[in-house]
């Protein structure tokens, strides 16, 4: 017997993600999902961003890693709320794992929650966690061919931060090619060139993020 069933395979996760999103919206909390390959600079970006915006935005962080709490310890030193998730092998975070952290936060005391995903340029792009938008980092040491090799993440992300620009003189990477390729796959993407090491370019990212969080919170309050 043939049964026709048209069902999205990821519907269970998508549903939980929507429920998470509804809770964030109700609390007026802006959430972004931060993704990149391992070592591109996700935690370094967060450390800088926490310092850069500490007088303007109350931030919390969920750290996703397969193992260890190194990243959560780094964020905790900045004195903001942080929860570490160890996926124990899974290559991405999902809606359920995020929901399990809710008890550890007081959302009324936060404006922005950042979900730092497991370092991986493939899988995290497929799983919603309830975020308002996705942000990705590509470091120049990874090479300019990455957008065309991993199109889904570039297509899904609202922002691309090209990190480690201080290393450009030493690596064979044409940053113009990264920008062109990323915009070919996602013409609406907002791009920033940054160096978490020297701080170059970070001010533009801080201003963008501050404005985006303020606008979104104003929208949510108006609802």
């Amino acid at each position, binding site marked *: *017997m*043939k*049964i*026709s*069933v*048209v*069902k*999205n*395979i*990821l*519907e*269970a*996760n998508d549903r939980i993600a929507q429920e998470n999103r509804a809770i964030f919206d109700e609390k007026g909390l802006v959430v972004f999902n931060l993704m990149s390959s391992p070592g591109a600079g996700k935690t370094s970006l967060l450390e800088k961003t926490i310092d850069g915006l500490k007088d303007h935005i109350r931030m919390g962080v969920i750290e996703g890693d397969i193992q260890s709490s190194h990243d959560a310890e780094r964020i905790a030193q900045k004195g903001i709320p942080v929860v570490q998730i160890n996926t124990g092998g*899974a*290559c*991405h975070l*999902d809606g359920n794992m995020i929901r399990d952290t809710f008890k550890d936060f007081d959302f009324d005391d936060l404006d922005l929650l950042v979900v730092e995903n497991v370092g991986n340029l*493939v*899988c995290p*792009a*497929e*799983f919603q966690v309830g975020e308002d938008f996705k942000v990705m980092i590509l470091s120049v040491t990874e090479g300019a061919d990455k957008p*065309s090799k*991993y*199109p*889904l*993440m570039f*297509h899904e992300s609202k922002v691309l931060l090209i990190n480690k620009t201080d290393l450009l003189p030493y690596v064979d990477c044409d940053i113009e090619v990264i920008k062109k390729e990323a915009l*070919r*796959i*996602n*013409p*609406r993407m907002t791009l920033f060139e940054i160096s978490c090491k020297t701080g170059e370019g970070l001010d533009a990212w801080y201003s963008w993020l501050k404005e985006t969080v303020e606008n979104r919170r104003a929208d949510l309050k108006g609802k």
Partner: protein
Amino acid sequence: MHEMSIAQSLIDILKEEMAKHGAGTLRSVRLHIGQLSAIVPDSLSFCFEVMTSDTEMEGAKLIIETIPLKGTCRECRLTFEIKDYTFECPECNSTEIDTIAGQNLSIVEMEVE
């Protein structure tokens, strides 16, 4: 390697559908996998095979069809195949493109006994 999670979600849905239809054996499942999704069909089939051994789904065949990426231009309303992940209208060069196919992972049909 998120194919393991995808296989688990797939099995959960299949189980539910089989119970709904009072089916005892699963023969085959037809899946549509969008070109833009980051799934490797062989690795999904492998995970499915491992995870269904010794269950009512053992031996079921996964028939996976890759669905090409298609978009509609918001400016000139042209529907076209998005080649090489270039989200630009081949007619009017607009980059306001709505993806209409090729991004989802879905079950479309199952054969049971």
